[in-house]
Each structure stands twice: as structure tokens, then as C-alpha cells.
């Protein structure tokens, strides 16, 4: 992991020319772009929203599972008791895994079968992933938490957009991006000040859905 090759980014200043000579990146002239795996994605969502509990060690926690998802069990809701909410913000590393019932958000993002060793996980690209990141209650909750932090940082819209980009994507927005973001928040608010938090949560959620957030470049 300390080699120069491993530490490359997935974009290269000489991208076009090199892509022509070795399109499959067989010679590793750049890093292969990777999508966040299920555990990293969950951790990232918690981290950028200020919710991640970094405590090390100790017993596992049982992540909450939607009632809808429990309907597949023969005992339905009776089969699964989630841990208290304050336990559930720890890293996914500490998540309890029941082999017959894996947290849907995790399988959606290709968490593998837990009963066999898996040398290489799939990286699928399917609509249910989009649906999860757009509609799932927990994901929206994190977007709301992120919005809360953004709103607290500044009182002007411009700096707030900068803050959202900085938190979620680790950089400042370009001029076009900033304009689009401001327009988005305005439209989602629809002139109703009570919808302010919702509008900023909507922006944060869009950032969660970007390829940039989901990939390791």
C-alpha cells in the first residue's frame, strides 16, 4: 500500500493519450476507480453527517431494519430486535450480521453472502441502489443531519453551499455547481421558510447520490 502505483489517483493529467494506448488499464498507469463498498458507504454517510460514533471495540450492534423488509421472515418483526439508536451509529465493521437476514441497504450495495469466503465482491449497478439512496428513510435522515450542520455553519446561502460541498465531497463547488445548487435549494423551498431544512437536506441528499461521492477516485 505504500507503493507509488497503489497511491495513484484514478484520473491522470495525460488521460486521453494513455487511455488510447492502454484502455483496459492493464499496466496500471492510473488507479482503477472503485465504488464504495456497502460498509464504507454507510460509514461515509454517517461521517459526513456528523453522526459517526468512532468508538473502537466492544459488542456488535444490530442495525434497524424497516418493517417492510422484515415481512420476508416467517416470524416477521418478531425475529429481529434492533439495538438502541445510540448504538447504531458505529462503524459498519461492528454490525451484527444474521446470515438469513442481512440489512437491505447492505445487500443492495453488494455486501456479500456471509456464509462463504468471498475474495472479490461484485459491484453491481442496479435501480434498487438508486431507490435506496433516494427514498430510504435512514439515508434521508442522514441527509437531514448533514443539512442541520450546513445550516448551522453559515447564514448565507453561498457559504452554505460551499460548506455542503466541503463536507460531502471534500472540495469547493465550481461556479456552475454553486449556481445549480442555489437554484435547487430555492426551488425546493418554494418560497416557504418552513421548508428550508427540507430544501438543504434535498441538496445534501443529491450530493450523497453523486458518482463522485460513491466512488474512490
Amino acid at each position, binding site marked *: 500500500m505504500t507503493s507509488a502505483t497503489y497511491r495513484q489517483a484514478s484520473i491522470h493529467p495525460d488521460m486521453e493519450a494513455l487511455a488510447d494506448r492502454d*484502455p483496459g488499464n492493464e499496466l496500471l498507469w492510473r488507479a482503477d476507480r472503485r465504488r464504495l463498498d456497502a460498509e464504507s458507504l454507510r460509514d461515509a454517510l454517517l461521517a459526513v453527517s456528523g453522526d459517526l460514533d468512532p468508538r473502537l471495540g466492544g459488542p456488535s450492534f444490530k442495525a434497524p431494519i424497516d418493517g417492510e423488509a422484515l415481512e420476508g421472515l416467517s416470524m416477521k418483526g418478531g425475529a429481529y430486535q434492533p439495538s438502541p439508536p445510540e448504538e447504531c451509529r458505529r462503524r459498519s465493521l461492528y454490525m451484527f450480521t444474521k446470515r438469513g437476514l442481512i440489512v437491505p441497504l447492505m*445487500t443492495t450495495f453488494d455486501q456479500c453472502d456471509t456464509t462463504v469466503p468471498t475474495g472479490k465482491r461484485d459491484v453491481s449497478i442496479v435501480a434498487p441502489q438508486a431507490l435506496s439512496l433516494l427514498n430510504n428513510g435512514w439515508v434521508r435522515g442522514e441527509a437531514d443531519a448533514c443539512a442541520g450542520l450546513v445550516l448551522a455553519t453559515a447564514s448565507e446561502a453561498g457559504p452554505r453551499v460551499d460548506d455542503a460541498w466541503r463536507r460531502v465531497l471534500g472540495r469547493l463547488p465550481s461556479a456552475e455547481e454553486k449556481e445549480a445548487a442555489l437554484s435547487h435549494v430555492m426551488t425546493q423551498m418554494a418560497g416557504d421558510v418552513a421548508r428550508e431544512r427540507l430544501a438543504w437536506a434535498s441538496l445534501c441528499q443529491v450530493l450523497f*447520490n453523486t458518482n463522485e461521492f460513491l466512488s474512490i477516485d
Partner: protein
Amino acid sequence: MPSPRPILRPAFPCGLSRREAIWEMGAGFAGLALSALLERDGFFARHAAGATPAANPLAPRAPHQAVPVKSVIFLLMNGAPSHIDTFDPKPTLDKYAGQSIPAEMKFINSGGRAMGKLTPACRPFKACGQSGIPISDFFPKMREHADKMAVIRSCHTDTHAHGSALVQMNTGKPLIGRPSLGSWVVYGLGTENQDMPGYVVLLDKRGGPIGGQPNWSSGFMPASFQGTLFRPVGNPILDLAVPADLGRDGQRRQLDLLAALNDEHMRSRPGGTELAARAASYELAYRMQAEAPAAVDLGEETAATLEAYGVHQEPTAEFGRNCLIARRLVERGVRFVQLYSGGGHLEETWDAHESVEKNHGRHAGETDQPIAALLTDLEQRGLLDSTLVVWGGEFGRMPFSEGEGKPGRNHNPYGFSMWMAGGGVKGGTIYGATDELGFAAVENRVHVHDIHATILALLGLDHTRLTYFHQGRDDRLTDVYGRVISEIMA
């Protein structure tokens, strides 16, 4: 120019198996001969059939052999109906009623339950249709479709416990972790309607099958092939509902902003096909949010149809609704639909330990009319030839009662019945037989692997060629087993 490689690559150090390496070395005449040998061996076909394009793993693909069947509806009678009381009449039981099962018949007594005496079927059979297939009194309406059915009476499986047997009926082995039948089917054929999941599972309201998610799992295959649970009312798929506080317009604006941001990101990253694919998946998700609820909305169905399926009466309302949804899904190009009759445990399923009369009376009452209506409806709409319908449970039941004087039956994995109807099936046939007591399959025995091989064959898929490279070998639904029962194929 890099040479073409199969998309699903074995994890060999140089990226090539020994066979491929030799092929690619192009060793002149010897190379040609080898290629021909490998071609005859089906080597290339194995690596091509089922190859998953990275952009869309569910794009429709042609089967190995062209057939009329496009979809499967698997009616799973969860809990295991008694074959002796449904599709396998045993007049000998009348003769030996009240006697003990012969000592030579060895078996596992599931749950260590009490053993009673040999007990005849609780309801009479009648020869039905022109073919004269005997069907129990439990299914007065299904009887009318006898000439469509190929009844297999010699089924057997490897385990006597529900959890493992359900998993075996669904995945081929009693251990969890393997892809389910529906996953293999969409892996091999993709699906016709890209705006809907290709593999849909409708559970019984009372609960899922024992074992849960592994029954519709994609196992070691990519998650895109797993079954999607459809709830029959309202928003059928998990996380499908557009959040109420945003509404469809609010979400559309999110998607538009997302597309703009992704576009910019992609511009500096040429060749990122997976980036484009992910962007496309958002548009599909947006469409699915509209299309999927429409599939379960029965508003456009006629009153006559709703009545035929028993949607507005008890006890057929729930299963009637599910059968009607199954027809609508198949109409919309969904590849594999699985319906569960019975959910949870014991009496909530076909698991008739207490009383076959009461238990099957209840569950047959829920399912007989809807299944008959489904067959009629498929036929009338010209869908029957392109749809394969499969009926059955995870095992059968014993010829002796459970305890003296108790009219229930314990589990029996050694012999049970299933039937198939629809495209490619030779209707009005009976295949295989159990012994005269209905204890074990003895003639033309059909293992679950054989059922699976046959279902795949009816879909035009050769079960020996539909493989997925996993843990160093070309694995398949039927592992190294499975025999296609051509006798029930038209």
C-alpha cells in the same frame, strides 16, 4: 488491441485459464484442432451464455434453444401439501388402514413426532378431463384444468425440515448461499421489461417461508439477479415510495441536479462506462416508481375478472389478488414470478400435522379458485403458451397419521407430487409413481435437481451449459446432477 475476453473472468493469475491461454497462443494447426474440440465441448458456449454485460445485467438474452415459453409462475405451496390427499391417490391405503407402516420402510421421523397407523386420503379423488388424471376433492376448480397438467408423482428431496427443504426447492441444495431458480433464470435470459424487476416474489400475508431471504437470493451471483419482494398493495417494492414531503416533482428536481453534477464529473473521466450506467440506473429507478405500482393496481381489471379470481370474497381474496398480479406481471414482461401459499409456521401453512382435512381444507379453499382462474385467464389472453406454471411444495407427507387417532401427517421427503402446465408442457400426463402406500418415489424418480433441469429446459436453457464461474469451477443450478424429464415436454 487487447484480445476479447469473456466478461466473467476466472481469477487465474494471468487472467486466463489454461484452455484459454492455449487457444490464444494460436498454435497453428494444433490450435485449430483444439479450438474445434473445445467448441464441440461447449467450452465457448459456456463462457458466452449468461455473460453479463456490465451496463445492463438484465438485458434480455436468447436461450440456448428457441422455445415459446417466456415467463415462469411458480406457485409454491409452503408447508408441504400431502400428495396422498391431493394428486397421488393410494387405494391400497384403504386396504391397510389402521395397520402400522411396514418395519422395512426406514425414514427420519421429523421432529420425533408420534407415529400413528396407515390412514387413507381424507377426501375422494375423481378422474378429471379427457386424460382422466385423478385430482382430489380439495380442488374442484383446478380439476377442470387436468388436461393442461403434467403431474409428477415421483418427486423426492434430501431433507425433511422446512427451512432446508424450502431452500432446496428454491436453490437446489439444502444449504443457504446458492442462487435461487429465479436468479438462474434471469441470469440466463435477462428480462423483457427493463422498467420492472425481472424476478418477483409475492409472499403470503401471514409471513415469509422459514429461512427467509435465502429462498430468493442471488447467492454468489451479482445482486442484480436476486428476487424482489413485491407487497401486493400500495408501493410494492422496498424504498419505492417517493418521499411524501418531496413529491414526484421534488424528486425530479433532485434527479436533474444529480444528472448535471454527474455529467461534469464524467467529463474529466473518459471511459467510465460504469459512471454512465449508474447515472442511467437513476432514470430507471424513477420510471420503476411509476411502473411497479401500476402493475399491482387492479383498477383496470373487469368485474368479471376480479370475480373469477375471487378477489372480493373470502377466503380467496389474498391469493386471488396475488394470482391476478402474477398474470399482470407476466403480461408486463416479468421473467419469473413466485407466489407463496401459506406463510409463517404450522397451520398458517400447508404443514398439516394436526388434521389434513382442516389444514388442506383451509389452504385449498384459499387457492383452488384463484389458480384455476389464473390458468383460464392465461389461456384466454393467449399467454398460456408463453408461460410455464409450476405447482408444488417442499416435500410430501407420510401415509400414516401423526399419532393414533390424530388425522394429521408428518413430513415426507421420500415421495411427493408436483405439477406443471403451460408452454412446452405435455398436458394430461402423469409421470412417475410412489410405492403402493405412497411412502417413497419408486418409479421414474424425480429429484429436485431434475425438476430444475426440466424447468430450465422448458425455458430453452440447457442446465449443463448455464454456468457461473465460482470458487474455481463452472457452477450451475443443478451442480453435477439433474436430468431433463423430456417425457412431460410436448
